[in-house]
């Protein structure tokens, strides 16, 4: 349950895995992401629920991602995500453009063990037009009432960062309940945390409500400031200076390579 290191925790994320990760505000496992890049994971099918920022851009730039399924990637106030944009324009990334509630609904279908979930909206959009894996069906309770059916999406692995876990693998996720959805929908869940609690989170009636049960968690690794340079809600803010540096460097392939050397790859002894 407790992994000896971040590297050990992510060891089971295989090349080609369908990997689901959360939006920036919900706890992004950036230390684990850097470990994946160092390990040179390849051909990931990355599902960013429902959007991503630095994490997707880094993984794409480092050549780890074959397919990206999400509703948006950008660096937020810092503008476009440069490696994502370059990969799309260069034709090196298979893109499955979605819309946020469709991704949630697809994960909810997997969570419920149903083959699909209906969703309003979408009809007449090019989002739908470019998703042959989505279907328009007739609402069985309507008359001439088309509605989109979205297939269940059950990722191989969910990966996120949270504040606190206990030694049974219970993870405090607080208000970020999409982390629960991810863990229910995914076959396996890997979590990094700021710190470990000696108690059992499920036995505290206040914390239990915001806890993902260890039953759903394959491994937990300690990673202090593991979301850096992204924020961890209620714990630390984004490192905006670092992110601005990233945006500047990643504008070119060379700059991005320098960023990887500087901040991702292991430093060689001088």
């Amino acid at each position, binding site marked *: 349950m407790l992994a000896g290191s971040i590297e050990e925790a992510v060891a089971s994320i295989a090349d080609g895995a369908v990997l689901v990760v959360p*939006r920036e*505000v919900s706890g992004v496992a950036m230390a684990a992401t850097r470990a994946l890049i160092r390990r040179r994971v390849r051909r990931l099918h990355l599902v960013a*629920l*429902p*959007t991503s920022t630095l994490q997707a851009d880094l993984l794409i730039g480092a050549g780890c991602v074959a397919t990206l399924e*999400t*509703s*948006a*990637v*950008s660096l*937020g*106030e810092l503008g*476009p*995500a440069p490696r994502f*944009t370059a990969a*799309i*324009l260069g*034709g090196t990334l298979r893109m499955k*453009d*979605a*819309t*946020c*509630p*469709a991704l*949630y*609904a697809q994960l*909810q279908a997997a969570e419920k063990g149903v083959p699909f979930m209906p*969703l*309003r*909206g*979408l*009809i*007449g*959009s*090019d*989002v*739908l037009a*470019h998703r042959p894996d989505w279907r328009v069906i007739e609402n069985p309770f309507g008359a*001439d*009432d*088309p*509605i989109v059916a979205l297939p269940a999406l059950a990722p191989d692995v969910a990966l996120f960062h949270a*504040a*606190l876990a206990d030694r049974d693998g219970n993870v*405090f996720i*607080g*208000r*970020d*309940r*999409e*982390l629960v*959805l991810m863990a229910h929908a995914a076959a396996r869940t890997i979590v990094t945390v700021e*710190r470990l*609690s000696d108690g059992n989170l499920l036995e505290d009636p206040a*914390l239990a409500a915001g806890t993902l049960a260890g039953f759903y968690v394959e491994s937990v690794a300690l990673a202090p400031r593991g979301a850096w340079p992204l924020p961890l*809600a*209620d*714990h*630390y*803010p984004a490192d905006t200076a670092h992110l601005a540096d990233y945006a500047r460097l990643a504008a070119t392939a060379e700059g991005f390579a320098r960023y990887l050397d500087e901040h991702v790859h292991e430093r060689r002894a001088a």
Partner: protein
Amino acid sequence: MSGAPPEVRDEELLADTIARLIGEARHVAIGNASPIPATAALTARARGNGRPTVSLLGSRRHTFFNDGGRELFDCAGQGRIDVFFLSGGEIDGEGNINLVSIGDYDKPTVRFPGSFGSAYLYYVVPKVILFRLEHSRRTLVPRVSFVSAPGTSAPNVHRPGGPVALVTNRCLFAFERARRRFRLESVHPGHTVAEVIEHTGFDFDRPDSVPVTPAPSAETIRLMRETVAPQLAEVYPQFAERVFGIRRAGWSPQGAIGA
């Protein structure tokens, strides 16, 4: 207070215009990176003594959402969001918005971040206000390259919502669903109808005489500066500092779990 009208900043005029569009709503939700709509919604709330409820999605303090990212969309599906804001890398004259790419989808020449929730919220939120500061033939086009979400739908498509207006740095358009066209409602002070025509890539309706967008009242200006601006600072610190001169407070956790 003096009767002399205060000098009105552009952002204040736009926010006031949007606040009027919000009207009698119960709940206004605002996505990330929308400080002017946020200013408008908070101003509407300040004027309405706490109504509408305002959900700023970038904030922990200014939203009640605590059931995961799907709650915003579920809430809209329940009919509990009256007003939302969308934008577009491109917007066309039929109200279609493009947040994805320009050119062939498989070999685009320009890529935007993606559709976010637009392909759903544009259909189900009764009043969607389009907000795009840059009013140019690059952004307001005859026909979008990619329809992230269409302005209107066939009659058999469930669509309680859709666009009601488009606010730019030059003017306010109303959207007429039945005609599937924009109508020029007013031109902001210092701008002209001819200029709007010149910089708009699509045809639109307009009355013979187009009014000037009215300036906010002194009371509204006071509310924005004194009540709303400090509230904005949590979510849009750069905006609050630039427009309202609010010094950024240091980041502070609300109280970390188990810290």
